[in-house]
């Protein structure tokens, strides 16, 4: 029984193999180059089907771009040179990870600014609550001040 099921399991195992699903079965002779090739093609956008990388896209232009990347790798270009080579032709849009330039600065800086703003606002609220808690509510004449302090907090 178990003997018979082994080939069946193996057949299913083949289906799970990434090679069976690869759009691009090309293997470069050098494993280091192959790894760089794999990484680069995953971070370059397919311009025709814009939310896929050229590694995942079956369209013919993506195939041509993969060939371009392979040839550039083989000619000894660095990863940065290859990105620059393609971005100079297709624009920064081909890079899934945008470079830091004057045009893309806001893209990188805005989240940091928003985070700082969020921390600032959160600290203010926490401090506001803490100062409210400090006030003894049993003292009759502080009721007015508490409200005033709260309004003051909101305004500034």
């Amino acid at each position, binding site marked *: 029984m178990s003997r018979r099921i082994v080939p069946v399991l193996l057949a299913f195992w083949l289906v799970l193999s990434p090679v069976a699903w690869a759009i691009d079965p090309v293997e470069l002779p050098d494993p280091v180059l192959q790894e760089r090739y794999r990484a680069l093609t995953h971070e370059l956008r397919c*311009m*025709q089907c814009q939310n896929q990388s050229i590694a995942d896209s079956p369209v*013919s*232009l993506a195939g*041509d*771009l993969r060939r*371009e990347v392979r040839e550039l790798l083989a000619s000894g270009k660095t990863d940065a040179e290859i990105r620059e080579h393609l*971005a*100079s*032709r*297709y*624009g*920064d*849009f081909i890079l899934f990870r945008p470079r830091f330039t004057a045009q893309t600065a806001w893209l990188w800086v805005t989240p940091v600014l928003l985070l700082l703003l969020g921390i600032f606002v959160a600290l203010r609220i926490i401090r506001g609550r803490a100062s409210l808690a400090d006030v003894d509510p049993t003292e009759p004449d502080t009721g007015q001040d508490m409200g005033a302090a709260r*309004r003051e907090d*909101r*305004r500034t």
Partner: protein
Amino acid sequence: MNRFLLPAGLFALLVVVLFVGIQRAPQKNVIPSALIGKPAPAIRLPVLGGQGEFDSASLRGRWWVLNVWGTWCPECRVEHDMLLEIARSEVVPMVGLNWKDDDIAAQAWLRDLGDPYDAIPADREGRVAIDWGVYGAPETFLIDERGIVVYRHVGAMTREVWARQFLSRIPKPAGAVG
């Protein structure tokens, strides 16, 4: 009242930003060419059909148009009549880069529909198209007399695009009327 002013203001700002974004969304589908204002990549390719070679250096000193097409591209058929009309006007030479196509099919296409091109380099492997940042046919480039790419249009050429984006940029020859 006062404490609602800031959130309401921010909300109004958000509405404006999103509205402008939605309004401009259709144009966002067209990716601007990285080549505008840069030297046109050299084209040195065999001519469709096999007689001789085309070299874009031969067009130095003239304004010219590069149209990227293929018989596998449905939009190319849509724009074909417009290309014939442009060719008849004889304003600028038009080079038709035949992109990843079959020579026999391309020649049959031109025989059946008419040939608007002054030269047809055959980019059978798609290497020149990559140099030009082509991502979908048809694409049409305008190149000035210094060999600088001035404009690119993605999609079928129309009379309006030709008049507004191409003719308006091409200087009129001296002594020409109108």
